[in-house]
């Protein structure tokens, strides 16, 4: 199957999932105990205002009609209107999305920069001290609450040790972003690096057993070349999938990390909107987050198919 055909088939498989995602986001408001309009506006709100909101959101209509209306608006790019800012929730999200994408992208780059050398080092020193130390990383690292790790890094590098990095914010310009976002991105990276290290180390050890590695070595290739050109390239295939599967965790982690470092991304928007009981914005952010995850799943599948053509024929 051609790569294009594979991508189209994967896209079609995503349709029912995307539909399910919209249903779940739609139903969020119906999980609110009692009358959502009353709960959202608070006890002081007049009955008229509650009625108006209920009508504006179509909560006085039957469920299927409500969902169809919700989908109709969604297909026109309308994610509802923020109760707090009185502008489109979609616009609010789009304004802040680049910040979050920066954080995720920077975090993913740092995670790979941490995981690849460490796992290569461990795999080439199998069952010796460096290997044992690297193997302990996932065991300890996975238990770190991401936001707490952020606070500790902030404390160490932002408030002490010469105040190397700013304690919060987004910075301006490319280098400004790099500087301001380094600690947050490092926090994101440290959250996911343990998972990558575990998978990449196991992948490398498996590849080292393969005959083509023995061949490469017996040809007299330098060990570094064997490692980088032959072993890593093959071991990285499964790691790309692992990164893809765990991207949800990575993306979700940014939500809390933005809060710690006061970064104006969509995570912070979501948390702020929660405290303002701004339902449309919370729904919009939830939807956008899941769209991001689904797109990353697709991207990793495509990357997997590029790296390992056998996948396309499954």
């Amino acid at each position, binding site marked *: 199957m051609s790569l294009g055909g594979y991508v189209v088939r994967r896209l079609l498989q995503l349709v029912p999932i995307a539909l399910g995602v919209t249903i*779940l986001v739609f139903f969020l408001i119906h999980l609110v105990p009692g009358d959502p309009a009353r709960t959202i506006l608070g006890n002081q709100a007049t009955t008229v205002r509650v009625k108006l909101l209920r009508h504006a959101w179509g909560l006085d209509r039957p469920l299927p009609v409500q969902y169809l209306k919700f989908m109709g608006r969604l297909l026109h790019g309308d994610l509802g209107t923020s109760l707090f800012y009185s502008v489109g929730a979609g616009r609010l999200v789009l304004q802040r999305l680049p910040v979050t994408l920066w954080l995720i992208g920077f975090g993913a780059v740092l995670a790979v920069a941490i995981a690849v050398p460490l796992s290569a080092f461990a795999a080439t020193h199998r069952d010796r001290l460096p290997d044992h130390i690297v193997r302990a990383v996932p*065991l*300890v690292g*996975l238990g*770190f609450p991401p936001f707490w790790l952020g606070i500790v890094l902030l404390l160490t590098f932002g408030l002490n040790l010469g105040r190397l990095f700013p304690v919060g914010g987004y910075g301006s310009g490319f280098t400004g972003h790099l500087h301001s976002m380094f600690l947050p991105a490092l926090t994101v990276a440290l959250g996911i690096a343990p998972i990558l290290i575990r998978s990449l180390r196991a992948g490398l050890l498996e590849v080292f057993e393969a005959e083509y590695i023995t061949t490469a070595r017996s040809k007299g290739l330098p060990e570094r070349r064997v490692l980088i050109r032959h072993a890593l390239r093959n071991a990285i295939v499964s790691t790309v999938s692992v990164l893809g599967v765990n991207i949800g965790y990575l993306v979700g982690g940014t939500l809390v990390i933005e809060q710690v470092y006061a970064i104006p991304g969509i995570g912070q928007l979501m948390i702020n909107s929660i405290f303002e009981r701004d339902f449309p914005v919370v729904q919009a952010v939830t939807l956008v987050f899941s769209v991001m995850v689904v797109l990353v799943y697709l991207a990793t599948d495509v990357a997997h198919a590029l790296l390992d053509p056998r996948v396309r024929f499954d």
Partner: protein
Amino acid sequence: MAAAATADALGEAIPVGQRRGFRGRWYRTPSFVAGVSILGTIVLLAVLAPLVTGFDPTYQDLNHTLQGPSWHHLLGTDDLGRDTWTRLVYGARTDLRVAFLAVLFPFTIGTVLGLFSGYYGGWVDSITSWFVNVVVAFPFYVLIIALVFALGSGTRNIYIAITLVGWVSYTRIIRGEVLVAKRRDYVLAARAGGLSDFRILFRHLLPNVITQAIVFAMSDIVLDILAIVTLGYLGLGVQPPTPDWGTMIAEGQTFLTTHWELSTIPGIAVVVTALGLSLLADGLADLLRPE
């Protein structure tokens, strides 16, 4: 994919009770011993909290706020003069209890759905898989936070949110195991013998496929503790004045420049607890793997 790989690695599953050497081998598995010791100590401290400390976790002593460690206050006091050590052990009570209970519901529901979906296949499997794929399309924290926001904060709603999100992992694991196990001779024999589906599922398949789910449950508790603590940090979790590690970290953050220990200590408690659980999971996986 991961579930299938582990099923491969496990080879043929043997029921836990019939495995040779579990009793004889547990003390020779270092990670199991280390995990049990760490977790046991924390559970013991939590259970015996009233004996370990003489203070009340919610008692405020406004004349002695933000004090450093002393004989009287082992880890000092917070901004309201509450004893940090006391809040730490009572926080363990809250967070461990919520995390353990929060795992039970998704474990049970996910396992049953995985059994049905793997055994019957067809439309049962299609529908279950669709639900799994939809839930997996959301980032874990985003969905948990959105659900708790809609349902309202508080312990009961944490259970509901974690259950709604957590069952998918168990369903995936069990479904994968059942797909392999249902082709084995003992299942075919049970079917040929005319046993009811219910009996085959719960008497014959379940004991053989549950091991992976139990091992995963240990690491799932780690995820749940992190989620509970994160909700607490955001002010959406266990509500004050009930002591909770996440709330403690959030409250301490205000005093980061002057009293860094207020945020750091409860975080270390989370990390140590999680380490104990991870070691336990690793040890269990080793012990339950047939030789």
